[in-house]
């Protein structure tokens, strides 16, 4: 069972419009897998379907080898404990401090003592690179980048095996965004996570993603490393990677890799 997520012939419809028309893909254990595509191509919907927040019209989604389509809340619980999710806008509980946001998940699902919960929350907050005093703050007192990290700390609370990131760098300044690139890679390397992310950020794709799937016209247009995808003929993929911004990000990535001591 090397594939943590396996999707076969997935079909999704909203009323008359078909969002996914036979999408199939597989994500391997320990890889950073990215879903890209133009706005409205169904990336986020696909993510929601894997997370059991939305039911597809047809097809199969297997997470950790288990079929999740049609799974009830009760049966989904053990599965949900094994993955963490960072939503696009953080979705931190606004009435709780950051430390309480992380601690709440631990309290809910484990029998650890309050002291250990507080310590674990502080470690998770430190792991995401937030300063120690961020734990006592409320989400609305944090900047956008800090909120993303706080949301990540909550997603990591239960030591998930699989992490989902929805637009992890959206709305961040370039400095915070490149901090997220590194954080994503670090987490995979140190905690052995498998990470699936939805993103528009070409820099993040070049620097963090192992494999990328391009969604468009209801299908997967291509899967592979960024270099593989850059060679594809599909006009949509070409446009995506060879548009003015795509070219800049690619040149940036090459420059970086050539100056790195290997």
């Amino acid at each position, binding site marked *: 069972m090397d594939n943590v997520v396996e999707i076969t012939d997935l079909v999704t419809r909203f009323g008359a419009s078909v969002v996914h028309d036979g999408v199939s893909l597989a994500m391997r254990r320990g890889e950073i897998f990215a879903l890209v595509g133009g706005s409205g191509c169904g990336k986020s919907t696909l993510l929601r379907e894997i997370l059991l927040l939305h039911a597809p019209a047809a097809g199969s989604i297997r997470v950790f080898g288990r079929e999740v389509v049609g799974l009830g809340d009760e049966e989904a619980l053990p599965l949900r404990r094994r993955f963490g999710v960072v939503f696009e806008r953080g979705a931190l509980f606004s*009435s709780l401090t950051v430390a309480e946001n992380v601690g709440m998940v631990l309290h809910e699902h484990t*029998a650890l003592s309050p002291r250990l919960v507080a*310590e674990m929350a*502080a*470690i998770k907050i430190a*792991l995401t690179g937030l300063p120690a005093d961020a734990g006592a703050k*409320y989400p609305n007192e944090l900047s956008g980048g800090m909120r993303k990290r706080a949301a990540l700390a909550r997603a990591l609370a239960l030591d998930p095996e699989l992490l989902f990131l929805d637009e992890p760098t959206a709305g961040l300044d370039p400095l915070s965004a490149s901090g997220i690139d590194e954080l994503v890679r670090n987490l995979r390397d140190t*905690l*052995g996570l498998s990470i699936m992310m939805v993103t528009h950020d070409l820099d993040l794709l070049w620097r963090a993603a192992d494999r990328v799937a391009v969604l468009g016209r209801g299908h997967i247009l291509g899967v592979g490393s960024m270099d593989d995808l850059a060679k594809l003929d599909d006009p949509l993929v070409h446009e995506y990677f060879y548009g003015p911004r795509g070219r800049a990000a690619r040149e940036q990535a090459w420059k970086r890799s050539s100056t790195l001591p290997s």
Partner: protein
Amino acid sequence: MNAVETAQAVLEVVPPAGAGVARATCAGQWTIHGIAELEPHIDAKPWPATGSLFVDATQISALDTAGAWLLHRTLTRLRAGGIDAQLTGLRPELGALLELVAARGDGIGTAPAVARVGMFEAIGRKAWDDARNIAGFLSFVGESFQVLLRALAQPRRIRWRAVLHNVQLAGFDALPITGLLSFLMGIVIAYQGADQLRRFGANIFVADLVGIAMLRELSPLLTAIIVAGRSGSAFTAQIGTMKVTEEIDALRTVGIVPQELLVLPKLLALMIVLPLLTVYTDVTGVLGGMLMARTQLGLTFQVFFDRLKEAIVLSTYLTGLCKAPVFAAIIALVGCYQGFRTAGSADSVGRQTTISVVQSIFLVIVTDAIFSIVFNLLDL
């Protein structure tokens, strides 16, 4: 004992035999779910008081950040107590995790102590908050009045669409509930009065009782309370949510005074609608009393009406009705003010909505009492 197969984390401490070295064996899954049973007892294990301790971690089958932290914390505590604790046999990939957690975890303090607030300080803070709240409300009333004056000077600036929309939501849509409740109120008053009046043979005076009670007091008050619950809360929730999503700030930046767009139409709509609703509930309330007078006291509608005409003078009707616009202003202003006081989060919207309803009902009743005193002094 084959500890490797157990799902739980296991820790056994063997005290030194004679002058030997103490040993501890860790086994099982040191994961967030595995350590739950071990954690409360870990400090109570028969740890040696001094000397060396070899901790054998060969049999740890799984380790996550929670398990790594528990292990690291225990070792740190022992070392701080003067014991030379050494960890051996941990698989290299798990060792990396332990190091990571140790590096991140050593800097953290335990949860910051929450400063306790004494009783007097709490009372003082509350009093200060309330005083500022009242001052804030008064200045909000002033600002809204200014906006109102400016709008009246240029009636074209009033957003009549929004006013009419609010008239529909707060007035027309409230007709069934206010009508029903006032009808029931009329029934209750007539029913309670009937028994007493019958003893004195004064059946006919039920018309006085129902007419005066409903028109002067109950119908304006009841309607105001229902509208405060229905519409005042809605105003607070709407403005509060807009505050949270920064829509209010957005309005300011595009050069629209939020009061003009959000407060004024609500204020005007409620001041139009509440007197109308009060007239309507006057009617339904008296109808309820009339129905009860017939079934309980045998008064025909005709007799009831004749008596009602004599019992009710115009001033009775007007003293009731003139309260309605005042109540309307209170409800709209409190509702909007509490909406603007919302800060930050979804939680705050709920809190302000509660405060809004409680305060507007409180103020409506207090104002009603003041009206009673004033009318009494004026002999109305």
